[in-house]
Each structure stands twice: as C-alpha cells, then as structure tokens.
C-alpha cells in the first residue's frame, strides 16, 4: 500500500540538479559527444537498441549519455520514447541469407562454402588490458584489405543439413500468419514461438545468458552446436500503402545465431537435428547465442520432452526476461511504504511480546 505523501518537491528538484551536475562530471573534462558514444562505445549502443527494442543508433547513444552509462536505464528511456511515436506498419521479414556479411562462423562445418569469416571479434584476443589505449593516439588503426570481397550471398550452413533431411525444416506455417505482438497484446499462454522469440529478442542479456548456461550445465536437455553465427547489414523492406510495392528503408546491422541440437526422435518425428534461433540488433553475439539456447529449451513440449527446468518453463522465462518490467517491480520497493511498514511493526511487536511472555512462563514453571 502506498500513501500519498506531500513534501519533498524541493529535495527532488535539487536531486535532479545534482544528477545533472554529476552526469556532466568535471567541467574541465570535455563533454562526451553522441558520435563518440556511437563510434567508440558501439556495443553498448547495440545492446541498448536490442533490449530497448528500437533500432536508432543516435537515439540509443543519447540514452546511454543521459543514463550515465547505465544500460538498463538507457533501455528504459528508449522504451518510453517509442510510446510517443505512431506505428507505420511492419516490415517484410528481413532476409538474413542476403546479409552483407561482416562475420560468419560455424562450429559444425570447417569447410563451409564462403568460409569462416572472423570479422571484428574479441575471440582469440588475450583479454589482457591494453595500456596503449589509455592515452589517445594520433594513428588510426587500419584493417588489412583482401583482394576479393566476401561473397554477396552466402548459403546458410543449415541448408547443408536440411537438404539431407537431417535438420527440422524451417518453413513458414501454412498461410504464413501474422505474428503475435507483445507491444499490442498482453502475454498469453501457451505461448507460440513467435511470442517467445519476440520476448527473448528484447529480453535481458544477463538473464538469458544465465538461463542458456543452465541448460548447458544439465538444467535442461540441450546439447547444442553453434551451426552458424553471422553479423552484418540487412536491408529492411516495407510496403507503403500509397505505393503498393516494397521499398528499402535503409540497412540495419543484425546478429544471428542458429544452434543445432540432436534430437532422438519421437512417434511423429524421425531422429534429426532441431534448431534454436537467436536474432538481435547490432553486434550482440553473446545475446543471440543465449537466446538460441533458451529458444530451443522453450520448445521442449513441441518435441515431447519433459518440462523440468526453469529454462524450459515458458511462463517463468517470458514473465521474467524483460529488464524494464523487472527493474520497475524491484524499484517500486523504494517508494514510501510507511503505513504498510507501521502495520508490520505493530504486528511484530505484539508477536514479540507474546513470545517473551511465553518464555517467561516457561522459565517460571
């Protein structure tokens, strides 16, 4: 129970001014610019866009600045901003097979067509602090150039397995139905895969990472391989009513992960590999891997597997993955609960008195 309390206006106003001063920091230090955040802290921007569920680099950079680098606060700012805008419609599904590849690896096939493209990865770095970065440098690093660019269209690794019938077919259901939209409909159960993929796509990376990890450690049936991970730019197509044909709005950067998991078969389905899918805005590879693990775990019922662990429980996962909702409910504990607490205090005092009286009697006997 919350009680309307008057007062504190001046304290709040002053607190906001103090926040503004601390956000700016030492005025002798140059103020950070949005292009610097976008260019040099780009992965923070990517994460804020992904979990904020809104692709707009500059806006996400501004949110990071306003939130003083607090990623979840920045995500909250983006979610709040999107509610102020009208919805023009939905895009055509992006075609990640036509991605302009900047990174593409497979842990299942060494010699895949198109090759293993490492791209701008932290993998194989030694994770030693690089003190050369401590001071700005005049020499901009330059990446080497190959003679021949990577192929425009690279076949999906999974097509190799699909063509042999060894992988569940990933075809649209009959009539290719309009997907569930969490921004317009309340959560409903049992949740379809469209609903859970949307939920996971904007879900908290830390939560999904821990859940994905739990499936690997035995809290879920999952023995996956990273069939393919890719990152790069895809065109977004949209059909404006006034034109009647699809036009390109521009390109967005996305990361995608396809996990393949062995499946021993059921009465209906032969033994084959099944898939878990991860997709995120920007370069959020760890997020897409975690998402793919959890996506596959949530498909347990579909494959007749026992639902025994948290990562397989769709109500548990979908209701707790959203960090804006989660922080809202946790943070509400900061609101005044003075009357609630007074009531509990009275109760505990009375119980305590009863308890002490009982002990005194016991001692006397």
């Amino acid at each position, binding site marked *: 129970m919350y009680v309307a309390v008057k007062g504190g206006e001046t304290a709040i106003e002053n607190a906001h001014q103090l926040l503004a001063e601390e956000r700016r920091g030492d005025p002798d230090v140059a103020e950070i610019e949005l292009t610097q955040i976008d260019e040099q802290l780009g992965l923070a921007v990517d994460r804020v866009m992904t979990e904020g569920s809104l692709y707009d680099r500059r806006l996400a950079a501004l949110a990071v600045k306003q939130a003083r680098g607090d990623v979840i606060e920045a995500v909250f700012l983006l979610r709040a901003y999107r509610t102020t805008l009208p919805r023009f419609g939905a895009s055509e599904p992006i075609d990640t097979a036509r991605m302009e590849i900047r990174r593409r690896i497979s842990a299942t096939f060494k010699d895949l067509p198109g090759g293993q493209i490492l791209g701008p990865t932290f993998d194989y770095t030694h994770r030693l602090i690089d003190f050369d970065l401590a001071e700005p440098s005049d020499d901009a690093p330059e990446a080497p150039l190959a003679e021949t660019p990577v192929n425009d269209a690279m076949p999906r690794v999974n097509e190799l397995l699909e063509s042999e019938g060894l992988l569940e077919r*990933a075809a649209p259901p009959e009539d*290719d139905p309009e997907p569930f939209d969490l921004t317009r409909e309340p959560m409903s159960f049992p949740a379809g895969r469209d609903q859970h993929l949307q939920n996971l796509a904007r879900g908290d990376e830390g939560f999904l990472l821990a859940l994905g990890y739990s499936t690997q450690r035995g809290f879920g049936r999952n023995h996956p391989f990273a069939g393919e991970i890719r990152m790069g730019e895809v065109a977004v197509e949209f059909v404006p009513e006034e034109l009647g044909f699809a036009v390109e709005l521009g390109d967005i950067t996305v990361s995608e992960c396809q996990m393949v998991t062995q499946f021993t078969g059921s009465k209906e389905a032969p033994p084959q590999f099944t898939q878990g899918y991860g997709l995120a805005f920007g370069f959020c590879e760890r997020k897409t891997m975690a998402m793919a693990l959890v996506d596959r775990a949530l498909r347990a019922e579909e494959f007749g597997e026992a639902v025994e662990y948290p990562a397989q429980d769709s109500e548990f996962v979908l209701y707790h993955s959203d960090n804006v909702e989660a922080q809202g409910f946790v943070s509400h504990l900061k609101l005044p609960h003075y009357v609630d607490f007074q009531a509990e205090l009275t109760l505990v005092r009375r119980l305590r008195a009863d308890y002490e009286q009982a002990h005194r009697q016991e001692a006397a006997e």
Partner: protein
Amino acid sequence: MLGNSSDDASNAARKRWIGVLARTDLDTLEDSYATLSPLPKHAILRKSETGLVMVRGRANGTGQKFNAGEMTVTRCSVRIPSGMVGHAYVAGRSRRHAELAAIFDALLQDPDHAAGIEDNLIAPSALALAEARQLKQRKAAATKVDFFTMVRGEDPA
C-alpha cells in the same frame, strides 16, 4: 494516383532509386538539391513525420514470422508542379532527409528532370554506396580463415 504507374518495370526502377535516396547522406541530398535551377516548388501532401516500423524476422531465418523489434522511420509525401507525387520512407528521424527524398522521388518520375537527377545524384550515390560496401567486404574477407592440416608422424611420401 498521379505518377504512380503499376507497371512492374517502372516499379523496379522506382524501388531502386527510393532505396538509394534512403541510404544517401543528408549533406549529399542537400548539395544536389541546391544545384537544381530553378528550385522546384513543391506542395507538401503529408508533412514529414517520424514513426515506427516493426522489423520482422523469421524463426531459424526462414520459418515462422516474428516481431524482432522496431526501428524509427520518417516519411513524407510531396507534389511537384508537373503533378508528380513523391513519397519517402527513410530509416531514422531526419525530417529534412525524408522531405528531400520525397522531392527527388517526384522529380525522378518527371521526364524533364529524371535523366539529370539520375546522372548527378542517383548513379554517383549508388556507386559510392557500392564502393563502401565493397571496402567493408574486403576487410571482412581479410579475416577469412585458411585452414591447413598438420602432418603428424606419418611418412609424407
């Protein structure tokens, strides 16, 4: 609707330039617009406004559709004196970008302007975009792994 042919070939041509205009940076559009003489007077049919488009994906890349997340998009519609109507839908929040893209979309449907704008704006911009893309793809290609097999113990005869 004036100027909106349903012919597939002209739709394909228009789709191409709309895609180029959406990706061309604002400075380039402004510079190109400033060189038009006389500056075409255009009527605003729909003022530039920013909104959202829900980006969709498919499960496993090719399966069931799902909503992946939204993006900001700005749209605008104009009419030029010759009667041609131009539309723009551009990623991001730049109202001016959408307005200029809509003006160019209208002008490109106008036989008096089409060739000039194609030569001075669309073709060079498409080339610059392709070059930037190629540079990016050459950098990516330099990170391609060349596997080699270690010979272990056997007689390499």
